[in-house]
């Protein structure tokens, strides 16, 4: 067991974890942050995407001990005082989700995408979301949501 101290969604937590525990397991099982989900065992689906010190990572690909001393933001830490994050609002507005299983990861990845490139074109958005699978939406509306959140004109 290893002791770690992590700031998760703004709150400092301290825990004993097994060295093999994944960050996604730590979030879900130890902290009850079940907004972050697991869709695969090959780091391909992106459902588990969170921010580690502000950058998106697949939390099934990071050990909990690697988060020691760092800051983690999950989908549950985005909305402030009941106000949706603009990316969440854009997903809602553009109907960029259906079952919603990929959504937390998609939203986290999309935010990071705009951090790097505040005005991406459609191809850049598609490339930027390549690591996140969605089976429901056909991506069309997800692309529109990212365009909307970036303040760009959206063609239907």
């Amino acid at each position, binding site marked *: 067991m290893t002791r770690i101290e992590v700031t998760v969604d703004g709150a400092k937590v301290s825990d004993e974890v097994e060295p093999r525990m994944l960050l996604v397991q730590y979030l879900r099982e130890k902290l009850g942050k079940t907004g972050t989900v697991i*869709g695969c065992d090959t780091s391909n689906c992106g459902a588990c995407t969170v921010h580690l010190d502000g950058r998106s990572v697949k939390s099934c690909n990071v050990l909990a001990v690697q988060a020691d001393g760092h800051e983690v933001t999950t989908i549950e830490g985005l909305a402030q005082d009941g106000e949706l994050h603009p990316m969440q609002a854009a997903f*809602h507005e553009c109907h960029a989700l259906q079952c919603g299983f990929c959504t937390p990861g998609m939203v986290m990845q999309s935010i990071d995408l705009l951090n790097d490139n505040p005005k991406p074109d459609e191809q850049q958005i598609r490339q930027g979301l390549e690591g996140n699978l969605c089976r429901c939406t056909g991506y069309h509306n997800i692309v529109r949501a990212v365009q909307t959140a970036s303040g760009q004109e959206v063609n239907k």
Partner: protein
Amino acid sequence: MTATQDAPSEQLEIGRDRRRKEDQRLITGRTRWTDNITLPGMLHLAMVRSPFAHAKITSIDTEEAKKAPNVVTVVTGKDLGEEQGSLPNAWPITPDQVAPAHPPVAIDRATFAGEIVAVVVARSAAEARDAAELVDVDYEELPAALDLKEAANDTTLAHPDLGTNKSAKWVFDSGDAGTGGNVDEAIQKARDGDGIVIEREFRQQRLIPAFMEPRSTVVDPTGEQITMWSATQIPHILRFLLAAVLGVSESKVRVIAPDVGGGFGGKLQTTPEEFITMVMARRLGKPIKFTETRSESMMAAHHGRDQWQKLTLSAEKDGTVTGFKVELTADLGSHVSLIGGGVPVLGAFMFNAIYKFPAYHFSVQTVLTNKAWTDAYRGAGRPEATFGIERMMTELAAELGVDPLEIREKNWIKHEEFPFTTVAGLEYDSGNYEAATAKAKENFGYDELRAEQQQRRESNDPVQLGIGVSTFTEMCGLAPSRVLGSLDYGAGGWEHATVRMLATGKVEVITGASAHGQGHETAFSQIVADRLGVPFEDVEVLHGDTMVAPKGLDTYGSRSLVVGGEALVRAADKVIEKAKPIAAHLLEASPDDIEFKAGRFGVRGTDQGLAMAEVALATFAAHNLPDGVEPSLDSDATYDPVNFNYPHGTHLCAMEVDTETGAVKMRKYTCVDDIGNVINPLIVAGQVHGGLVQGIAQALWEEAVYDDNGTLVSASFVDYLVPTAADTISFDIDHTTTPALTNTLGTKGVGEAGTIASTPAVVNAVVDAIRKFGVNDVRMPCTPERVWKAIHHSGGGEPTTEAAKPHFDPASGDEGTADRTDGASE
């Protein structure tokens, strides 16, 4: 009492782009996935799965596993014996169907790679998985039936004790049914005279539904009632079958499908994992959870499609079709699953699509193999049928050298001919293929793209352009019960709804159609808001819990809105009827003088009236009701439609094919769907986008591939190519409106339309691009390798401007077809 409340706004909810109610929890991570559920003292399961496609289990040593930390027990199929029951097969399509017994845990023989042979129960999921590695199983490998065509000949037996792999043969013949003529005669006539006969053999490869939320089940046996949470599409059917198979009283089982992360037919199943979790929870008296890994999901959740189609189409020289003969061989996998045996039969009614075929014959031979079992996958039987006919109509056009839309127009049912009884015996109530096609052509820029194609052909451009056409229809809204019964399906197709006016004026709506991403809470709120004249926000839709919604037949086959939505309308109308005498009494008017409009009961010819909310409160208080009137504004309705309904559409696709590398790239996709009246255009567009990508994926990328040993080599998202945002494009979608005549709302289903229509549109486009090399087919998925081979096998690698040669002569019919290199997967 007189009116005190303003009548709600007259703006109708139906037809509005309402943002979804369900988004809030999904977007903020406050979701209720099954795997999120943790109960005090909960145990966890891990499955030990066979690595062999077919093997005798000679012994299982569980001792080491039992000694592992925090392991509670390890059981084998033998240990469970009768207690585990046999998984249900609800659709024996013929009385003599051959179906092996299906214990959830294999007892002495494993029949596909991935089948469960032992179960570990431990205090944590990780400990259960670790211990599962310690279970020592001795197998004696048996020859496996893997190739579908060989299996159909009983070359190797999937279940030696059955003596055959042939499960059932189901036949429809229009001559016998009296709906048309004799196909063999029509084909012979075309061969003898100067007609045309097109013969093709198409492969519907095996697909994996690949819902994003892996399947998960939690069972809590404590208390009076056993509660199961499951990531399922069918909580009601599951409850019934758990009770029936395991001998528990139905009233003692509660099934909850909380938020469910996609299904696409893949969660329309009663799974071994659900039965095992239930049996173990009852045995141990403790809550238990099982959540599968992605690779388990790909190996052992059911697969879809997997057919060979032998098709023969006869026509006159002017392109008028005279007969169509369909011979299918369908792979069921190792067992006959819940409705898997009947999936190809659903296709029987759709091979004639939108056309007036004078003679039609359909037969399917279902076959057992040593692979994962197959069952419904988005469209279930109808995508396979639509692919077959839309490819054939395109080949007929190519043969005659005419535009593929022209050949369709020549044969389709004209707008003024509806209602129309098809050669397959269905009555289409409404449709307008002309309107959808005209709009699609225009939106797509059909003529311009055809001109560009011609120019690229003539200039021998290394990148050729192909245009694919698919004018589809489907039967959706799975019901009517009587029809399902006539096809030997084990259940009905009705749906149930409850509408309750609450004292606060809010409305509680309960539906048996439980959603997994379709937005029922929003669309159903819109329907009820209009019907009762209450604000959209005041309607609360409850579903997915058999204790809350005790009756229902769940969500599949695009039936929620057309069957479940209509049940809601009827329940709401009953509430209005119940409220009328109460309102009359309160207004001191005769019930005959009361009219209900926009949420208000008014007295005809006066400005006197009461809002629905006021009547609801007065009913709740019950201080002053007419004599003998029940103090309740609750109503139920169970609706069983008289007919399926028939959405249709015209899909057009432009594909660029690099003739030097075989790489294909989508340039444009336009579709115009006609699903009758639309409740929520935003939701409908989303369903179309998602459906399109699933259908395009079948055409271009996805395939479940087994190797020569029967191991699934595409058992992860590394090898099974679910498309990403970067693989796809934005779509141009639109609709025409021809209301359904068989339900009040005038709606038709849309969930499967995109998938059904897009696969043939894409393949038609790929073939169209390279037809000039003498190519008349490319097998799916159209990988660069297959496309390249198709070009170079028949064209000797030299581009030619010659038109594709006729291919209807069987001797040359296979010329342009790419060879499969992975023969073992057949």
